[in-house]
């Protein structure tokens, strides 16, 4: 790393390995961020077993399942887009990123209807119907909205990352010999998928 540059032009040296390392460290913070919520979930589930059991039956497993499949598939296409980029197949890579974004929208539309249905049934924070329920169920739905909401926020951020990547591909900043940003965006997207892999059973499956 010695003989490159001098003086005023500041040099940000390229280190793909280091970038990935930094991205992973960032993912750990995201992991622990959700981790805090998982700790809360675990404690409340432990304290209010019966109520959590009852409340979970009100969620629609089918919608959860469709969303799981959407995210798993999008994760695959995101990973494939890296392979395509490595092989120099830029067009295919872009197409795969678009597919990934498409699944993200499927996920969000689904979520929209799911939340909409819950809200129209009067189950939303601060609603009279919810406050009439036992404490454990209030906590369950509180956590449901917060955890899936934060997760959806991450889906949106992931989509923004991918749109940014598409722009950079167009500008030629990402190419078959320099694609670490694509890799990092994909890593972020997989994390979103990983979190959902746990949210799905915890909220939709365990009755």
């Amino acid at each position, binding site marked *: 790393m010695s003989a490159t540059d001098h003086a005023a032009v500041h040099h940000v040296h390229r280190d793909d390995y280091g970038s990935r390392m930094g991205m992973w460290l960032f993912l750990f913070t995201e992991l622990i961020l959700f981790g805090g919520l998982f700790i809360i979930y675990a404690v409340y589930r432990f304290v209010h077993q019966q109520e959590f059991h009852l409340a979970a039956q009100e969620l629609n497993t089918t919608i959860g399942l469709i969303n799981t499949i959407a995210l798993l598939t999008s994760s695959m296409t995101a990973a494939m887009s890296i392979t395509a980029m490595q092989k120099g197949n830029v067009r295919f890579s872009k197409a795969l990123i678009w597919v990934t974004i498409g699944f993200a929208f499927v996920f969000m539309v689904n979520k929209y209807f799911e939340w909409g249905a819950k809200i129209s049934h009067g189950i939303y924070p601060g609603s009279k119907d919810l406050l009439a329920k036992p404490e454990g169920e209030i906590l369950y739905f509180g956590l449901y909205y917060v955890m899936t909401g934060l997760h959806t926020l991450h889906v949106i951020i992931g989509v923004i990352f991918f749109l940014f990547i598409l722009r950079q591909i167009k500008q030629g900043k990402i190419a078959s010999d320099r694609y670490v940003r694509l890799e990092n965006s994909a890593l972020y997207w997989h994390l979103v998928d990983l979190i959902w*892999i746990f949210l799905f*059973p915890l909220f939709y499956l365990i009755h």
Partner: protein
Amino acid sequence: MSDHQHEESHVIEYGNYIFIWLGLLAFTGITVTVSGINLGNWTIVIALFIACVKSWYVLNYFMHMKYEDIIFKVFIATALFTFFIFLGFTFWDYSFTR
């Protein structure tokens, strides 16, 4: 500079991804099916176990952890260990009579 200097990119074929994807879908199917059976407290254990298996595949293949250096694996172990400390030690309080 230190650690590992080599930087060869590892190309994973599309077919492998599809294979992993099918596996993940299969596990999803299993976990949904099993959740319909009433197994008492085991339900949560099985569901979380399957979720762990799924994440293991996502981590190793989709996220390329299998092909990364050992230091990345040490990092992940550290992060997960920390999380389980946080979770576990909280239960020193909750799992005993207060």
